[in-house]
């Protein structure tokens, strides 16, 4: 006999007939129950996406409605935006701005970011419910039950559809409630669903191809980035490349600007095509592994991997390099559009007044210092996630064998902390240098390089303070260490929405970023940097002491 035959029913096949495949069982059996499982497991995530995206939509629409109340004001906005490459890259082609309506302006302000958000959500949701599940072995439990081979993929896609439609419906209701035309609102909702589902399909494909779930997420995320860039080039140029991007398709539906409904055919065809491709690819891979085989590792460790610090570096270096490449590219782009800043203000008296009130002489400097603040906020997300490695290492139990060796907790923690602190500085430097090179190119002023590197590096002590707060939280209240993300949220709100929300000064002062001199617009101030550095050291020492004294999870 060849092969494996496990069939206890052979002898009594009359009593126990073989499974009747024709009637009810297929490779999709169990999909309906799995959809419920997906929605049940993700209910908090879905709620967060829902609140975040619909909330952003609502806040943006209301602020646009408040800012531009007359046709003249709308025309003023449109004049600023039209033909300005810097803004087109960040906002889209600006359909309907030739004869601007409120809807068109709201779209120009928010649509692109919502498309990117649902695209990322689609990739993450599908990869998480397919490959990540296989890696945790939870999928094994399900697949051992009478659940079809393709049911997890199908349920992830259907779950994504439910979430996308729910978010789109919420947005449509919000937009109509603001008095915007129903047709345009529905067109926008449909375009969101289109983007979300195409990228859910992209996630379904990368989940089959990549060697692991992290690789699948990275490949899916990179596809979102490529889609963004393709449409950016297309929107600035003749528009041809925008048709190569699902995000470009969504914009081409032209919500509130003489809607082109037929464009919805593109996502409606592409999504099933991606799912069919994913299904075919899945049939060519083994459970738990991708089409790209997992590479073998070394059989012996390099000398670098001999200490807790060496391990921390090894675990985080890939992430740090990824951040450096991503943020460097974004910073370079901000630098490249620095020369457009003057042009933005030429036509917009309100914004010119705004800058005048701030007492900022050069608009270019103001633009660059704001851009640098945004870059620093992004980089601080790395800082927090890097310190929080301590948490994931501890919660997973991977720290146990480290601490069972003659390694004390401070040594272990300082390894990850060193990556966080030095990595923050390195990221700031990369952002400053990349933005500096970009700005130097378009402004024809090499001196910009040094200035912008300095403008980036002044944020480092403030980033260290955030690292210190994160460490102290982890040391004192390990269950609450994820609250460190709230610190970032506060820093972000204080930096970006201080005037809109009319926050009191003492509340703003709680954000370490408020004390950083806004180079190059403002002048250098050493004292706050020294104080922030001292504060960071104090927090870190306190955090290490607290960590040393408590029980490990």
């Amino acid at each position, binding site marked *: 006999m060849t092969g494996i035959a496990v069939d206890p029913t052979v002898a009594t096949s009359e009593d126990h007939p073989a499974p009747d495949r024709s009637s009810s069982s297929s490779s999709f059996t169990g999909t309906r129950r799995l959809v419920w499982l997906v929605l049940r497991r993700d209910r908090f995530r879905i709620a967060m996406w829902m609140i975040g995206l619909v909330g952003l939509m609502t806040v943006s629409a209301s602020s646009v409605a408040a800012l531009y109340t007359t046709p003249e004001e709308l025309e003023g906005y449109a004049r600023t935006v039209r033909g300005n490459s810097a803004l087109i890259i960040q906002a889209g082609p600006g359909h309907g701005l030739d004869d601007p309506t409120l809807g068109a302006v709201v779209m120009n302000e928010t649509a692109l970011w919502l498309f990117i958000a649902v695209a990322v959500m689609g990739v993450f949701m599908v990869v998480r419910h397919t490959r990540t599940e296989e*890696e945790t072995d939870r999928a094994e439990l399900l697949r051992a039950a009478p659940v079809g081979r393709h049911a997890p993929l199908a349920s992830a896609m259907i779950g994504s559809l439910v979430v996308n439609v729910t978010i789109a419906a919420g947005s449509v209701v919000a937009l109509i409630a603001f008095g915007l035309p129903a047709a345009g609102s529905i067109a926008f909702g449909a375009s969101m669903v289109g983007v979300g589902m195409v990228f859910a399909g992209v996630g379904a494909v990368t989940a089959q191809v990549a060697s*692991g779930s992290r690789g699948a997420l990275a490949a899916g995320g990179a596809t979102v980035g490529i889609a963004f860039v393709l449409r950016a080039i297309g929107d600035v140029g003749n528009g041809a490349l925008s048709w190569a991007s699902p995000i470009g398709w969504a914009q081409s539906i032209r919500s509130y600007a003489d809607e082109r409904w037929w464009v919805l055919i593109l996502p409606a065809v592409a999504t099933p095509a991606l799912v069919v491709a994913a299904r075919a690819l899945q049939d060519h891979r083994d459970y*738990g*592994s991708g089409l790209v085989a*997992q*590479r*073998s*590792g*070394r*059989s*012996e*460790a390099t000398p670098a*991997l*001999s*200490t*807790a610090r*060496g*391990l921390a570096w*090894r*675990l985080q270096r*890939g992430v740090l390099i990824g951040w450096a490449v991503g943020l460097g590219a974004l910073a370079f782009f901000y630098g490249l559009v620095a020369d457009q800043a003057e042009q933005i203000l030429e036509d917009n008296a309100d914004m010119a007044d705004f800058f005048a009130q701030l007492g900022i002489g050069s608009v270019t400097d103001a633009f660059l210092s704001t851009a640098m603040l945004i870059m620093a906020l992004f980089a601080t997300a790395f800082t927090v996630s890097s310190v929080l490695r301590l948490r994931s290492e501890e919660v*997973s*139990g*991977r720290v*146990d*064998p*480290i*601490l*069972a*060796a*003659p*390694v*004390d907790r401070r040594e272990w923690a300082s390894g990850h902390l060193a990556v966080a602190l030095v990595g923050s500085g390195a990221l700031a430097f990369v952002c400053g240098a990349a933005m500096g090179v970009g700005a130097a190119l378009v402004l024809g002023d090499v001196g910009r390089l040094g200035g912008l590197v300095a403008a980036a590096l002044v944020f480092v002590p403030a980033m260290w303070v955030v690292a210190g707060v994160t460490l102290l939280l982890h040391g004192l209240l390990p269950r609450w260490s994820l609250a460190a993300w709230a610190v970032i949220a506060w820093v972000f709100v204080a930096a970006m929405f201080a005037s809109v929300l009319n926050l009191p000064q003492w509340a703003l002062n709680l954000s370490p970023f408020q004390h950083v001199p806004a180079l190059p617009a403002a002048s250098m101030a050493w004292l706050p940097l020294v104080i922030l550095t001292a504060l960071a050291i104090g927090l870190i020492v306190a955090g290490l002491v607290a960590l040393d*004294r*408590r*029980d*490990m*999870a």
Partner: protein
Amino acid sequence: MIEGLHKAFGTTRAVDGLDLDVRTGEVHGFLGPNGAGKTVTIRILLGLLRADSGTATLLGGDPWRDAVDLHRRIGYVPGDVNLWPNLSGGETIDLLARLSEGGGSRRRGQQTIDRSKRDELIERLALDPTKKSRTYSKGNRQKVALVAGLSSGAELLLLDEPTSGLDPLMESVFQDCILDATREGRTVLLSSHILAEVEKLCDRVTIIRQGRAVETGTLAEMRQLTRTSITVSTDQPIDGLATIEGVHDVAVDDGHVRFHVDGSALDETIRHLSGFGIRSLVSQPPTLEELFLRHYGDELGVANAATSPKTEQGEPG
């Protein structure tokens, strides 16, 4: 080694007045069902948790205060091994071994990694060290931890259910390794609920229940303290057997009489039996399983449903 140890998590008393004494050079079995407090005890010994009260002395030091110095002399194998997914097994083993060597090179009790021992263990356990840890099965992750823990020259091995997930073949390789370790004069604390493993390897055993040691000693000692089961057939019918103090569960079965007898009543019982002309007598010492079940029997409710001891809360990680 441990006296009156207490550790509570909230209202759950995980370790509640535990006494445990492991002697140098012995293999000490640490028995108890899930949730009895075995892992918490070992984590206290590793200095990962701080005891609420009581004293623990490890190789003459305080496991919390002297953690780093003590760890130079300790090998540890956890039962639930979680590894860094993007490191290969070989890298993980080397990393843990180098960490065990420690930075300071001339300290007392220095462990040294035996390269040949590492490679030999990898070979014996049939582990592929080039695979990334994310692709390892549970058994293979366990092997990585075993190689890392056993290839060091540690004086004391703390093993927390070290063979969970291993197949019987690898289980026997593990037992050989432990026997090798004892020949080298090392001390082993083996937490386990695989009774056959404990019976084969351990010199002395401590049974723990709800955070408290309920029995400790050599297997021989423990057997003396408990009931032996006897099956006997005699020329004349036996009577008066049930009246002897210490004789339990008398049952007549096809000319044979079966009963249990306490160690203290054994002598009197045999003398009583010899008056009826013994034709055959089979005496079975209590198995470890019986010893174990005696302490947990009441938790099982019905005695013959002796398959899975009830799980308790309070054993994190």
